[in-house]
């Protein structure tokens, strides 16, 4: 049994090796995740499938310019437009909202505003989803993972692909 477990561990390490080999920063990975989140969420209230998807980053942008490559990239046929507005007002026409850790104190206000505008909220604030957020980054050891609050997403009319749900380390239903 021991030998078997050891072998499995070895194989797992070997298969994970390429991922670790390319040394990438935490936010590089988070940026990739960010883009991928948008690919598995469906905005049912949007009029068509081609209108651009507006991604708003509120607070201090922890990505730096890592999100720049996403600008103009297509997700589910929609072009991403990345902006950094000062507040969460409806005027900005956001669809996705990244809440920076710097905004943790105003979180409840931001979340309420986001709920009103039916925004997909993403943040790496701890316990983000328990506080009304939809997708929250977490760190398990060295591995970046995420949690999803499906209940909120459903009330907002955002459909999240079950494949994404399966990857989440925690889902609030």
């Amino acid at each position: 049994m021991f030998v078997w477990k050891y072998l499995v561990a070895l194989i797992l390490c070997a298969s994970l090796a390429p991922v670790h080999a390319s040394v990438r920063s935490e936010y590089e990975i988070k940026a990739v995740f960010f883009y991928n989140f948008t690919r598995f969420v469906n905005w049912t209230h949007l009029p068509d499938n081609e209108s651009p998807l507006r991604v708003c980053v509120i607070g201090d942008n922890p990505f730096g310019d890592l999100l720049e490559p996403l600008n103009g990239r297509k997700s589910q046929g929609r072009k991403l437009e990345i902006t950094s507005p000062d507040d969460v007002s409806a005027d900005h026409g956001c669809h996705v909202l990244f809440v920076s850790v710097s905004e943790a104190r105003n979180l409840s206000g931001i979340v309420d505003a986001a709920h009103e505008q039916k925004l997909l909220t993403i943040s790496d604030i701890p316990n983000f989803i328990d506080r009304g957020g939809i997708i929250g980054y977490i760190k398990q050891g060295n591995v970046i993972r995420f949690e999803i609050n499906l209940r909120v997403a459903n009330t907002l009319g955002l459909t999240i692909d079950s494949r994404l749900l399966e990857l989440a380390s925690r889902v609030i239903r």
Partner: protein
Amino acid sequence: MIGRWRLRYWPLKAKLLFLTLFTSTLGIILVSASLIVVENQNYRQRLASELHVIAGILAEQSAAALVFEDSNQLTSIISSLRRIGTIRQVCVFDAAGSLMSSLNPPESVDCPSTIEPSQMGFVGDYYQLSVPVTLDNETVGHLYLISHLRALRAHIQTFIVVVFGIGALIQLALVFVAFKLQRVVSQPILALSGTAERIAQEQDYSIRAPVSGNDELGRLGTTFNEMIGTIEQQNRRILESRAGLELIVEDRTSQLSLANKELEAFSYSVSHDLRQPLRAIDGFGQALEEDCADQLNETGKDYLRRIRAASVRMGSLIDGLLVLSRVTRQPLENQRVNISEMLQEITEELKEISYSLPTDIRIQSGIWVIGDGRMLRIAFQNLLENAWKYSSKEAQRVIDVSATSDSRFITIAICDNGVGFNMKYVNKLFVAFNRLHTPSEFGGTGIGLATVYRVIRRHSGDISAKSEVGKGASFYIKLPVLTDQH
């Protein structure tokens, strides 16, 4: 060579059965083979499409895990395929082509990141395919799947067993049906040939073949029956005419035997009744000669002597006739007879009666024939007497008896050195009362050779003579070599 001709000697039933069963077996085998080929084709297609569906679903499911680089999730997704025993390996690669996860350790089964199109599909004992993993029309990786075809082999083997099992069952049923159906054809033919054989064996032309149906066989039966009817009619006519003939023959035979009997009775009574007046003539002649000799002159005595000589000759004539009629009448009593000894006895007797001149008689010894001893003695006595008589005027008498035989006949030749006869009259030789010499030259009745002829004919033999005047005569008696009945 023998095997090729053997079919010809098979009975009709066997031929018909063989033909039908051979055809049906061939049909069943062809159908089975094509079913198996089609099933193999179909099953391959089904297998391929199933594998494609599985790979498609897997690719769909693993898209998210691929983009999030979650190997654990990928492994758990593809490990669901472990339940499908025939799948040998599944590998998932990311967009860059590096291996993200595999069903079995890649060390045990290789995970090719790219496979050439020629190696796709059925290769050897495997089916392999590669499908891209797409998300929003963007290829985020690809999935490789290889499955071995054990299931296909097992399925086809089972299918073959089932198909041939059903084929065998159908064939069994067909044997039964063919056995029943061949009778439809073979039964009338067999009945016809059986009838023909029975008619040939029993020669009973009243038998008719059973006629069934209105096809060629039915017509054959009808024609056959008509033919037999014609034969029966002709036969009846022949039998009727034969019966008529037999009646006529019987009638004639009875008439003939009646006439024969009358003739025999007549000749017998004639011979007997003729003797009485003859004895009276001779007796009174003798009395006249003895008692009244002194009253007769020389002329009277001469007449009287002639009367007596004539009556003696008449007596011997009557004796000859009696012998002839006995030879004709008496039944044969066949036995082995030694002719040599018989001839020897006869010559001894002849020598005792007259031995006036030197006589040389040569008789071949050991001549045996089958026949009636008494009759043959009469015949040979006559022949030897003739030889003796007609050679009595020579300086020396030479008689030679020899025999030659083949498988069927024995020919006895009796040759003398006597006066012989003219071959012109050879036809008259064996006819009664025909004499070639005057009584003054040689005495005789003219019955002897007729008797000989009758005896030899009754022994189913033949007699012939050869002579030249003054150079002796030869008589050839040909008798069949019969097997000894004792």
